[in-house]
Every structure is written in structure tokens, then in C-alpha cells.
């Protein structure tokens, strides 16, 4: 008897990773259903929600927070128990959280993937840079990434391209902002290596998107759709005949007698439960919701590693006033940074470090700071004018090591409006990044001195960076990892994860591009088997 399936592949989540995986499967001629807990909202409406928002600094504010699809900022949705309040800004709508990011699309370095072998700490990836390289190229094409084909992105100052690429960047890099030029001109002679940041804010028309024109509003929403968001491929999925079911919160993956996953169960916003079957399943519900779903379903967890090893690029910042006007806020919200500490033998002792030059229009941050100092009236106006020209904002991130005790679990006490458990997160910072922080602070002193600066804040404390990794990590041993190098569950041969949660060693770069590359790779593998 032939078994009838609702689709060849069910993808849970319509964000950048899920939509790219679904798109590639559709191109291979497979039938795909994407289940999305949120809804589809056109860009103009989100822009209007932002324009009319009284909370411009809250990146989730223009997006709906539905009872059946709570965002991470929904009060009480995430309960923290560690020494750090882990609270990334995750969204629930078609297109996912890349509706607000800054489009940083670095590649991991070959050495990032061999952390344990080379430096004796953390874990190795089960695949090499060479394994992933062609898929990086395809991911960059899908996202329309602009990048430099001549720089050493390891930050070690060589004069040739690194890491190696088989294809050039699809879009050439944008011109350097005056802010970036001046900081580079004055700090590079001190030995700091400035690297352009490859980014998915195309500066030339790409795939129906216009070129970035520097609205400086990547977060919370690009008003013109120049910056890549998952909605691009969600639309492509629909154009190719893929089906996206909205308001469908998956709460259970059903195991069959042969150990394969046979069905996904979702609950609608009307509290109706639906069971859908497929040959293969891809869970692409971000690095927190994915392990939560696996744990609630009691699947894929023979290793007991699901939800553990939670990593972010937990970071800190520096704000100071330079002794000359730099005019921050013109052009992109970030353009690159200082990468001397991206790789080296020091990684045995302390974390790798990335200093990113934040180029967000600073008026709001400055005004808030001045008001908090009690400055008002004409003095406030004068200071805003002066400071807004000279403001320098460095956003620093650190490489976390995977720790089994840093974990996300379904809450045992709280449930959302659909009766689905909310989440509990335990997250502690460790000595590895504390030692890195001391190194970063020494750099801060040099930055300030090099720019003749006046410090506004050089002690921000640890901050969220919203780069969720490790929670369904990949490895080459079923006993110690959740998925193999294909992102396939060790326990269920037809279950794949498309989330940055598979990344076992997190380097210092934003993981979305690697996530999309891995998702495309998984789609290719599944297409051969379905």
C-alpha cells in the first residue's frame, strides 16, 4: 500500500533559514508545506507601525506579539535563572527575525571550525570550511551579499583574500562612510586591522530589492527592503507553489514505530489541532524554539544535549566622544570593525573578540543619556548637536564556549495562551569571556586615546547580541551531539534542523549566513532522498 503524505517535506518556521531550505527543495521539484506560528505582514505596514511607535528603541515594537505567537519580549515568556539575563529579540511572523538584523553576513574561518583541535577548548565542527564553502556561495547569492574580494577577513593583516572563496561576492562593497574612514585613518597606525563587513544590505538592485540608500534603520525595519529579510524567500516559496500555513504553532513531532518522525502537530490561533504528515521534516524555528519543540516532543534527545550548550556572542560596548566631528549615522548602521583578536593561539586562554563600529544615528541614545544627567533646555540642544557629530559607539562581541549547564528548557510551570509551555533559560558567563573582556578593555583605552576621546561609557556590563547557537549542536558522535554534519538528527533519519542552534563553536561572527548555507546543504541532501 502506498502511504499518502501531506507533503514531501514539512518545514517548521518561515524565517531566512526555513524559507531558503523550502525554496531549494521546491527548485528540486519537491512539495513543501511551511508551518509558521505568526502571520504575513507587508513591509509598508511594519514601517507604518514603526513610524507611529512611541518606543523607537524597542526593536520588537513594530511587530505583533500575538497570544498564540509570543515574541521573546512578551512579558514572562522567557524566565531566566543564570547570572545573565538572556533575552534576544526574536520575532514571530512570516520571514522571521531577519526582519530586524543588520545583515552582517561573515563566513566562519576554517580555524573557527577546529577550535578543539587547534586550541584545546570548546568543540570542533564535524564539517570543514571546504565542505561548507560552495553552500556559502549559494547563500550569499540568495541574500545578495555585498563584500570585499580582496581583504583578509581573519583580521591578521595579510594582503590577500581570506578565507578562500570559489565565487566572488555577488555585490561589490559599498563606499566607506566618513566615520569609518576617519577611525581607520587614526587607529590603523596603532596596529588595529579594520575589515569591511560583508552584508546583506545590497547596494545594487538585487532580486527585486532596491539598493541600500542609508536610511540607517536596519533595526527595527528596513523601510525600502534593501536589506535582506526572510520574507524574500517566503515569497519565492509561494511563487514556486510552496504552501505557507500561518497561525500554525507546531507543538509536537510524532514518532513512528520505525524511529522516523511521521507527523507534525500544530495548534491554530483558534485552538484547533491539526496533524500533517511528510516524508521529511526540517525544524527551522530558531535556536530557542527548536530545542523547546524537540524537548516537548521527547524526540532527538538520546544524547541529552538538546537545549544545552546555549551560546550567544555575549558582548559589551564603549561610547566616547572623539576630538573631531565624525558624523556617525550616515549610511549603514554598521560597516565593519577591528578584527585583530579574531583568531590566534590566545584562544587557548581567552575568547576571540570582534569590535564592530556601530554607525546608528546616535541622537536618541545621546538625548536619553543627557536627560538622565538632568540636562535640559538650550544646553540640551547644544550638547545634542555637538555630541551627535563626535559620537563613537563600539559594539564588542566575545566567543562563548559551549557549556551543558547553559540551557533552554520548556517551562514546567508556565504556559502560553495556547497551553504550550513557555521557556526557561539558564545562562552564566564564564572566565573565558571575562579574560577576553580584560583584553577588550585595554583596546578601549587605546581607541579613546587614539581619537583624543572623552569616555561616556566604558563599562556597560554584559549585553545580549541575539546570536543563538549550540542548542541542537552538530558533532561527529551521536552520544555527545544532537545532529550530524548534515544537520540530520542522530535519532531520526528524516528529521533535520535548520537553525543556527546547530553551530557547536561560535567564533565571533553573526551566524545567519552559515545557518542559511547549512539549510541549503540540508535541502540538497533531503532532495536526493525524497
Amino acid at each position, binding site marked *: 500500500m502506498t502511504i499518502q503524505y501531506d507533503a514531501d517535506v514539512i518545514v517548521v518556521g518561515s524565517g531566512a533559514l526555513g524559507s531558503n531550505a523550502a525554496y531549494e527543495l521546491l527548485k528540486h521539484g519537491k512539495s513543501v508545506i511551511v508551518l509558521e506560528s505568526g502571520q504575513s505582514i507587508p513591509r*509598508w505596514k511594519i514601517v507604518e507601525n514603526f513610524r507611529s511607535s*512611541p518606543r523607537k528603541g524597542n526593536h520588537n515594537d513594530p511587530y505583533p506579539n500575538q497570544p498564540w505567537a509570543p515574541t521573546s519580549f512578551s512579558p514572562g515568556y522567557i524566565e531566566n535563572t543564570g547570572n545573565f539575563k538572556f533575552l534576544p529579540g526574536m520575532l514571530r511572523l512570516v520571514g522571521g527575525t531577519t526582519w530586524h538584523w543588520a545583515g552582517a553576513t561573515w563566513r566562519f574561518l576554517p580555524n573557527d571550525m577546529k577550535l578543539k583541535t587547534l586550541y584545546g577548548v570548546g568543540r570542533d565542527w564535524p564539517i570543514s570550511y571546504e565542505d561548507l564553502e560552495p553552500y556559502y556561495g549559494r547563500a550569499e547569492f540568495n541574500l545578495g551579499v555585498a563584500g570585499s574580494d580582496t581583504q583578509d577577513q581573519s583580521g591578521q593583516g595579510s594582503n590577500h583574500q581570506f578565507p578562500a572563496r570559489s565565487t566572488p561576492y555577488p555585490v561589490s562593497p559599498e563606499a566607506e562612510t566618513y566615520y569609518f574612514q576617519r577611525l581607520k585613518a587614526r587607529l590603523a597606525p596603532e596596529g588595529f586591522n579594520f575589515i569591511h563587513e560583508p552584508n546583506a544590505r545590497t547596494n545594487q538592485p538585487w532580486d527585486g530589492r*532596491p539598493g541600500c540608500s542609508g536610511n540607517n534603520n536596519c533595526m527595527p525595519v528596513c523601510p525600502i527592503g534593501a536589506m535582506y529579510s526572510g520574507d524574500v524567500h517566503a515569497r519565492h516559496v509561494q511563487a514556486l507553489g510552496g504552501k505557507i500555513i500561518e497561525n500554525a504553532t507546531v507543538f509536537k513531532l510524532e514518532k513512528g514505530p520505525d524511529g522516523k518522525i511521521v507527523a507534525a502537530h500544530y495548534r491554530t490561533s483558534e485552538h484547533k489541532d491539526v496533524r500533517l504528515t511528510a516524508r521529511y521534516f526540517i525544524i527551522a524555528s530558531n535556536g530557542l524554539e527548536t530545542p523547546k519543540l524537540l524537548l516537548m516532543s521527547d524526540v532527538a534527545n538520546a544524547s541529552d544535549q538538546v537545549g544545552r550548550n546555549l551560546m550567544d556572542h555575549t558582548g559589551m560596548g564603549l561610547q566616547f566622544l572623539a576630538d573631531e566631528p565624525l558624523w556617525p549615522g550616515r549610511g549603514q548602521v554598521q560597516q565593519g570593525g577591528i578584527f585583530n583578536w579574531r583568531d590566534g593561539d590566545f584562544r587557548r586562554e581567552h575568547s576571540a573578540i570582534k569590535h564592530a563600529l556601530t554607525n546608528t544615528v546616535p541622537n536618541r541614545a545621546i538625548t536619553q543619556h543627557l536627560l538622565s544627567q538632568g540636562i535640559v533646555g538650550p544646553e540640551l540642544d547644544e550638547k545634542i548637536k555637538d555630541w551627535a557629530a563626535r559620537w563613537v559607539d563600539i559594539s564588542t562581541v566575545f566567543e562563548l564556549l559551549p557549556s551543558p549547564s547553559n540551557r533552554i528548557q520548556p517551562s514546567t510551570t508556565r504556559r502560553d495562551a495556547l497551553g504550550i509551555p513557555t521557556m526557561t533559560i539558564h545562562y552564566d558567563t564564564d572566565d573565558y569571556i571575562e579574560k577576553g573582556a580584560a583584553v577588550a578593555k585595554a583596546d578601549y583605552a587605546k581607541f579613546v586615546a587614539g581619537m583624543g576621546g572623552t569616555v561616556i561609557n566604558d563599562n556597560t556590563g554584559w549585553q545580549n547580541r541575539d546570536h543563538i547557537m549550540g542548542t541542537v549542536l552538530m558533532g561527529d558522535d551521536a552520544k555527545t551531539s544532537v545532529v550530524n554534519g548534515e544537520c540530520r538528527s542522530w535519532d531520526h533519519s528524516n528529521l533535520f534542523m535548520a537553525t543556527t542552534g546547530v553551530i557547536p563553536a561560535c567564533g565571533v561572527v553573526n551566524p545567519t549566513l552559515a545557518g542559511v548555507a547549512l539549510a541549503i546543504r540540508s535541502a540538497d541532501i533531503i532532495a536526493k532522498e525524497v
Partner: protein
Amino acid sequence: MPRYLAPGLGLVILTAIPRLAMAQASTEDLVRQGAYIARAADCMACHTNPGGKSYGGGYVISSPLGDIIATNISPSRQYGIGNWTETQFSRAVREGIAPEGHLYPAMPYTAYSGISDADIHALYLYFTKGTKPVDLPPERHTALPFPFNQRWLMAGWNLLYSTGKPMSAATTAAGGTQRGEYLVKVLAHCSTCHTPRNIGMSEDQSRFLAGADLGGWHAPNLTSDAISGLGGWSDDELKSYLRDGAAHGKSQAAGGMAEAVEHSLRHLTDADLDAIVRYLRTVKPVRNPNQSRPGFSVTTGKPVDLAVLDAPINRSPDALTNASSINGAELYTGACASCHQLNGQGTHDQFYPSLTSNTAVGGPTAQNLVMAILKGVNRATNNGTVTMPAFEKQLNDAQVASVANYVLQRFGNDAIHVNAADVTLLKEGGAKSFLVRYAQIAAIGGVSIMAVLVFVSLIVILYKNRNSSKE
């Protein structure tokens, strides 16, 4: 050879160059001349599919009769024109009759009939020696509905409407007295889009370049009329529009005109652009009786009430999700104002053009405004590519109509109003022509088929007579 060379010097050079080398140089020059003619005639726009190989065909021309698929005109012997003689080539380009049969007038042979003998020779050399063969079978063939799939019917059409004769190279070569007319009428075939057509789908020469509808867009009036045409444009503005697709404070090219700028006009010499401008100044003015002021004459937008604009909105999750609004102001601020700005003034450098002082907004029709919203703009220029995103997937037809009305009211012709049905019609390519609407109905109705057959027979007889009288 430059004309100012003294004859004696010319003789010295001629004798100094070996015969063979000179013959080669001469062919190279002709191929180069042909390449330029091909640019001016914009062969590329139709015969190259975007992203495809040059002159490999495959581009879909949406005609009122149905999709016409441009053919491979590369020198491929199997799929292109590699086996054509120069006579066959000339006949196809200038008379619309290829070795395989009649062409549809989507190929502007009625205009190309004026190509000079010298240029057709150069063009033939370019296509046979200056381009690379594309040896790929066509993915799609033209398949128009009956009766238009009867290509031989075109013989009758040609008899009625194809009248041009080759112009003389003496007056049409670069610098010649008729160069501008030659570029406008013949090579750039401006009238193919800009001259309205009669009920037989032929250009109405009494309204030459007076503007016409095409696939939803409106190709504007190019006559010298000060209100409906180009009379109010400066020479620099016209030239800038032809070269860059934009004349600040006047208009910008989108749709088919963006393609013409991208593939053809921006590659023309300064002297040729000047010649076009000079000729356009002489085109008989044709006034649109419904128009009393130029389309660019609204220079300032009507003010907006900021208190209304900044009123708090319902921030419930349902309200933040609900995108069904047909409030034009809300749609404008969300979808348009990031680039065109709150008061429609565009950006300072006009990279994002103003909606005031803009013929697409202030002119007698809102077609180009609606089409730009639906389809966006994409135009490669000599200074980067200009893009406006298409909104047809973000806004429904009623929303497009309401934002268009908002723009018309505040920034342009507040006397016109569009509704959702207008938008739907434009999206589908605009109103169909008389011939298309009635020929098919006639063909379907049993009795009328007889009438069509009689008509066709008549054409065949006339055509045969013409051929025999030629011989």
C-alpha cells in the same frame, strides 16, 4: 575617413596601406558602424532575454494580440540568422518578411523600412561577423490565437499600412541634415510606441508621436506642443532624459522607456542626442483637448496635517498585523515616503525623484503612476541602476488605487481619480484594441467567419497583384 583631410594627404595614406589590410579595416569599421546602428535601433531590448545571451531571443513582448516571442537573431546557423543572405536580411528588417515567412509588426519593420542601404549593409555585417552565435533552441514560440496565428494575413496588413522607403545615406549619416528625423522615425522607432494606432492596429500618422497606450503604460506625447508635448522642456532636460532616463522636475523613464534608455539611448553620441532633440522640436504639435496645463506644472504639494499623521494608532497585535487599510495617507507614509519624502519632494539630489513637477503624477492620465507602483522601475544608466520596488505583491488593487489617488490629490493632477477596477485593467495590460476585441469575436461567430474569409481572400488577391506588378 575624417572629412577635413586634404585630398593629397588622403592619397598618401591610401597608397601607404597595403590593400588587404585596408579591406579588413574597412569591414571592421562597417561592423562597428553596424553595432552602433543596432544600438540606435535597439535590437537588443527585444532580441535578448534579460539574463540571456546577446541576441539569443526569448524575450516575451506582451502585445494586445498575445505574447510574441522575440527570435534568435545571432549568427547561429541552426537557430539564428546565420544562413541568411544580405537580401533576405534586408527584406526581414525593412519589409517584415523573413525567409520563413511574415513577421508580426512587433518587429518595427514599418519604421525600419527607412533604414538606408548603407546602414542595412553595416547592420548585416555586424550581425553576421560582429556577434557570437547562440546555438540554443528557443524555449517558446509565438502562438497567437486565431485568426492572428495566420501569419500570411500580415501580407494584407503590410499592403495597407507598410509604406516606408529607405532614406538616403547622404542625409541620414552622422551629421547629415536628416539625421534627427532618421533617428526618431527609423532607427529608434519612437512612433512604434508613441503614435496612437487606428482600428487596424496601424500608426495614425495624423497624430504622429501624440502619445499612446501600451501594455498598461502610456507612452507620452512627444510633439512640440507646449502643454501636452515637449514644448515646455529645455534642450538639456530632453537630452538628460534620453541619456539618463531622468529630467529633474519633469519626468523619468519606466517600463518600456526604461528599456529604451538602458539598451539604446544612453549609448548614443552627444551629437545624435542633439539631433534627436532638434528634430523633436519640429514635430507638429498635437494638443490633448482634455489638458490645460503641462503635466509638470504642479510644483508644490498640498500640506499635510501632522497632528492627523502623528495621531496614536491602535497598537493591539491584531491592529499591527491588519494591512487592509485603504487610507491613502497611511499607505503613502508606509510605502512611499521613505524615498519620495513626506511632501513628495524626493531627495535633495533627486536620486529619488520628486512626485511634484512630475508628468507621471500631474499629466492627463494616471496610468504611469499606477504602473510604476505596480511594477516598480528598473533602469540601468551610465551612472548605476535606478530601482523602485514593485508593490503589486504588497498592495491590493484597491490599495494601489487609493495611494495613487492620494498622490494625485496632493502632488499632481487632482482632477483625475482611479479605482480598483482601473488598476486591475492596467495590471492586465490595459484596454484591448478594437481589432483584438472584434476579430476574435468575429472569428468565433459562425457567420462572421465567412466575412473574415472574404476579407482574407481579398487581401491575398491584392497581394498577388502587387507581386506580379513588381515583376
